[in-house]
């Protein structure tokens, strides 16, 4: 974006950053899958918890 004078532009090498891998699991795809898997695990746990103590 062409920023008008006044506000300083952040100015970073964003293309390089795009390729930066996550610190765990090796790729962003695997990390995303891990987050969704964690959600599934939580829902199952909560469901079992709710059923276990349902009136």
């Amino acid at each position: 974006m062409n920023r008008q004078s006044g506000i300083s532009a952040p100015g970073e090498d964003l293309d390089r950053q795009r390729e930066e891998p996550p610190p765990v699991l090796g790729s962003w795809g695997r990390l995303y899958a891990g987050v969704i898997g964690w959600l599934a695990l939580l829902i199952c746990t909560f469901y079992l918890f709710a059923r276990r103590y349902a009136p």
Partner: protein
Amino acid sequence: MRLADWFVMCGALAFVVLYGLWRGRGSNSVNKYLLAGRTMPWHAMALSIMATQASAVTFISTTGQSYVDGMRFVQFYFGLPVAMVILSMTAVPIFHRANVYTAYEYLEQRFDTRTRALVSAIFLIQRGLALGITLFAPAVVLTVILGWPMRQTTLIMGAVAVLYTTLGGAKTVAWSDFQQIMVMTAGLVAALVAAVLLLPGSVTFPDAVALAGAAGRLNAVTLNLDWNDRYNLWSGLIGGAFLALSYFGCDQSQVQRYLTGKSIAQSRLSLLFNGMAKVPMQFFILFIGAMVFVFYIFERPPLLFERTELARIQQPAMQSEYRPLEDRYNQAFENRRAAADRLLQARHSGDTGRWQEELKAYQSAQQEFDAARRDGVSLVERAGGTKGLVDTNYIFLTFVTRHLPAGLVGLVMAVIFGATMASISGEMNSLATVTMVDFYKRHFRRAAPDHHYLNVSRAATVFWGCYAVVTSQFANRLGSLVEAVNVLGSFFYGGMLGVFVLAFYFPRVRARGAFYGVLAGEAVIFAAYFFTKIAFLWFNVIGCLVVVATGVLISRLESSRA
């Protein structure tokens, strides 16, 4: 509050604020003031995002909601991790590459000035109103505890938050949020431990969980698909995902938090961490409410937790009606306590038949108790008090102030006050950013020195602080505060999300389609609110779909004419 409580509360808050100001020193340019110079690591952003979202409302109202309605509210957050993944894949790299200060700047790059101005204005209205509710919540605390007048209380709270937000900017906001989450965690763990330890010696932790479950307070997952039901698995996963997409993808108060990241990867990690931590955190907070419910099975709670309204029906003129109700309520409490004791005996005996029999008696006693409370609410109305009184927001605070030991009360108060400051500081910071970047600089003065825009940003922060104090005066009419915030968001988020979906995924859609799409989406959302009984979580889905459909249709018509 005792001396130890004041010492703990003031010490914790002073540490959080001073630490934030120290870390935020040197914010002497617009880039540093609004985006922390894009230097923030993922862990600071992650906790800042969580702190901005978790206001005092989260602790005051969510625990009360669990006390009254059970834990099903946790489902509201099931869509959040899904949204975090989607935003990490799309919005984070797009916003970073666009090199923007606000999400709405990107809309001008993609569409036109008019669309940017419309969506920015929607944000200012919606977030400005929510800011008032956020500020109102701790004022409830002070009114209950100290009897301070609401107006002065909101004024003091607003002034403190304005002061450090104005001085330090985004970096101070982020680092004070970081410390605030630490205080919150300590306070919440202490509150849960205290609630369990304060139970009678004969009631173990598994017993307490069983009693909460038997009263329907552990209903964390409900599978029924009902469009009019606010919280079930489906509304949480679908409606909650749309709301989270809107909140974290289109609301500058959140977008600005992860725009401060030093790289795309750091911003992504902050969102993904939030996605993993938020659901367990909400479960934990709701569980505290369930344990407070069990505590009050054995310790008689007030007929109404709202002391002002309780005093109204206790006045001499109402005694002829209040006395019989109080006797009935006390009897209902004793009956429920006795039924709970018998239920636990049945549990320990392992006799399934006896358990079922005692369970029915316990549930019947609970219904009798609830009916007495409802009659108390009706008596308030007859006494000229609040119609349809909802005292959910006072339950947790009553428990804290009446039953927790010295020092711990101060810690919980620090959690509530600090959470408010964390939220409103982030919100004021974002409102000031949009006011300066999307309106002042874009429409009034496009070329000026950096320090001029820095001063305008600071002035805008002060303005939004004043606005928050004024709107907070009306927040006590909105029932459950946490729901009020979310309902308010749902009026606008669907339209905002729709226009960003068009921008990201529909390259052929043009400016006219996007602009009228937003207007159509908002019209349908308000029509749904006034003329249907559809639960508010679905407004985001409906609004987003209407914006996308309208935008695509208008753009196709334009293309066919060209």
